[in-house]
């Protein structure tokens, strides 16, 4: 197993390319979410009352718990990346496994929350429960944003688990390559986006 792939001639150059590539990808993701945030802000300005009322209906407890979980997972991911740099295989394994488990935990909680939302009629469409103008739009964004975030998280959990499995089997190029760093940056992006979603979707309308 060689860590160096075509068309690269040195490992350092290959590492640079991979890191540069993931940064470009992240920039592209930021535009993607940026578009969503822009739309959200436009409607927020149009319907301040509706958004406040709707924002008070989300489940603050689950939202907060999930924020804590994701922040912790970012730390465990960072541990894995640093351990990788130091060449500590066992620590990398642990870091990755914990990260994946926390990711799954997030999704389980999220599923519980979704079920509750559906029960409360917070799904846009014919049976929508609230009457303030704009509340429905708020929930449209709630669903789109959290769903897209969940898709990213699912991909992240998949990638991290796969990495852990391959590392365990000894089939992963991790020494000297940017692999862990790339996965780590991706994971931090998921975390970062949630940090924006949390106040927009959960803290709104709870000022008292």
């Amino acid at each position, binding site marked *: 197993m060689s860590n160096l792939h*075509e*068309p*690269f001639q040195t490992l350092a*150059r290959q590492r*640079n*390319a991979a890191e*540069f*590539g993931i940064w*470009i*990808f992240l*920039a*592209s*993701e930021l*535009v*993607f*979410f*940026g*578009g*969503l945030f*822009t*739309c959200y802000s*436009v*409607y927020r300005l*149009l*319907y301040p009352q*509706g958004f406040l009322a709707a924002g008070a209906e989300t489940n603050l407890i689950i939202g907060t718990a999930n924020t804590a979980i994701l922040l912790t997972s970012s730390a465990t991911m960072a541990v894995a990346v640093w351990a990788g740099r130091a060449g500590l295989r066992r620590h990398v394994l642990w870091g990755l496994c914990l990260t994946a488990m926390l990711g799954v935990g997030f999704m389980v909680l999220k599923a519980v929350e979704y079920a509750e939302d559906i029960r409360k009629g917070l*799904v*846009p*469409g*014919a049976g929508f429960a609230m009457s303030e*103008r*704009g509340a*429905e*739009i708020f929930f*449209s964004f709630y*669903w*789109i944003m959290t769903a*897209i975030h969940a898709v990213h998280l699912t991909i992240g959990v998949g990638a991290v688990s796969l990495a852990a499995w391959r590392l365990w089997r000894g089939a992963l190029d991790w020494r000297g390559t940017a692999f862990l760093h790339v996965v780590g940056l991706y994971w931090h992006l998921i975390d970062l986006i949630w940090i924006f979603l949390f106040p927009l979707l959960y803290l709104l309308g709870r000022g008292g």
Partner: protein
Amino acid sequence: MTDAARPGTPDRGYSLPPSYLNAGTTLKSWLLTTDHKRIGLLYLASITVFFMIGGIAAAVMRTELMTPAGDLVSADTYNRLFTLHGVIMVWFFLIPAVPTTLGNFVLPLAIGARDVAFPRLNLFSWYLNIAGGSLALSALLLGGVDTGWTFYTPYSTLYSNSYVTLAAAGVFVAGFSSIATGLNFIVTVHTQRTEGMGWMRLPLFVWSIYATSIILVLATPALAIVLAMIVGERVFDLGLFDPRRGGDPILFQHIFWFYSHPAVYIMILPGMGVVTEVLTCFSRRKVFGYEAMVFAILGIAIFGFFVWGHHMFVSGQSTFASLIFSLLSFVIAVPSAIKVFNWSATLYGGHITFEASMLYALGFVGLFTMGGLTGLFLASIPIDVHVTDTYFIVAHFHYIMVGGMVSAFFAGLHFWWPKITGRMYSEGFARAAALLMFVGFNVTFFPQFILGFMGMPRRYWSYPPEFQILNLMSSFGAMILTLAYALPMIYFALSLWRGRMAGDNPWRATGLEWATASPPPRENFVQRPVVDRAPYDYHPAHGEPTEREDDPDREKRDDRPEDPA
């Protein structure tokens, strides 16, 4: 250069030396290849298919428009036809065309690289493109979509009962393919340049693909999000664009054009790059104002993000916004004009020869200028209000997209064909096709400027009788165009088994891609080239010995690997 003077062996029955083409000949070796050159050819094949499908739709439309009555197809079918045509041509032909075919093939060679930075991602993005194309095509064939290629809301979300969801999903998937390709090129240019290939020595074709890639990476996600919102709206009834529930349909247009205006530069910048290479080569002059060209390319890429509102002068956006967008649109014309001036200055005093590829490139300059100038008309609010959604618009964007970009695509294809296949095509046929394309194009689209000014709206399947003469001209021109597009397929195909050997550098061009064999070996260069001079080191026309036709050494020289710069 005449046919007879071309380097090459008279014997047509020889076989090519070992190259990327015969390194593995099974279908699997092609479908699983990670060689950027083969991937370029995979794209060439798929894009040709898309172009033909889009073209057939255009032909049917132009036939319908030969008579004032809507007698060939129903209004509804006509709507589905122009949508099919627009969706395929924009999303699946124009946007990917040059970057994925010529860009994939030439860019790594031109910077002396072994391959793109992420070869497997490159292959993956071809599959994404095919997947997106299949989704969209299936939507268009199952029953069609009648929204136009822009999917404007609320029509597309509330009223259209066609396969919008499937088509939007297809474009969405193709968008990821674009992002992956752009990312790959950016990283490739940063990390794979060979020794001595500094930024200010990059060929302008590489610069233009680089700038295009930046737009691909930073604009496409905006399209993705707005398409996702359309799908969400249709499938889950979200109400984001439904005015009755507080949604705002104009918001869609803002985000859509935030992507789609830069996207017109995705469609034209690569063409500008191709044309620059061709013009300097066949006028044997260094590009005039290399630095200015680089800044113009980057300027176009950046300012392209600030003018989207000129598509919305009649949408109900505020007058103030319209004024700003109008002003900015004039500003962005400046870098484009710089490019036209520099091309002219490059040609001026050059030792110009009219190879087919040069004819296409010259055609590009003329038609692009025409499209660009009418673009200035459209940037002025009063004129735009008068001609909005008339054939004036149709003529304007066809001048840029078809007259400009498609010409450039053909220029590049003819220019690099000998490198790609190792063989020459029939220069005589090719020149005839280039001229025919130019004539056919103008006959088709020039009358539409007049039609538009007279007030004929676009997207109608019938019209008042007084418009018939001009429409007939246009349809007649379209027939000429069809022929002109069919010709290259024939002589290119013929060249594959009958074409003479091209030699490494039939045009005596200076780019690195010409410093390796034609077709190149799998690993591009046997020995990695080193660059020790500025690009476009052509010897100026003045005083160049006129040896081109009768120099006894020319064959030898042409087959010799030239100094790599």
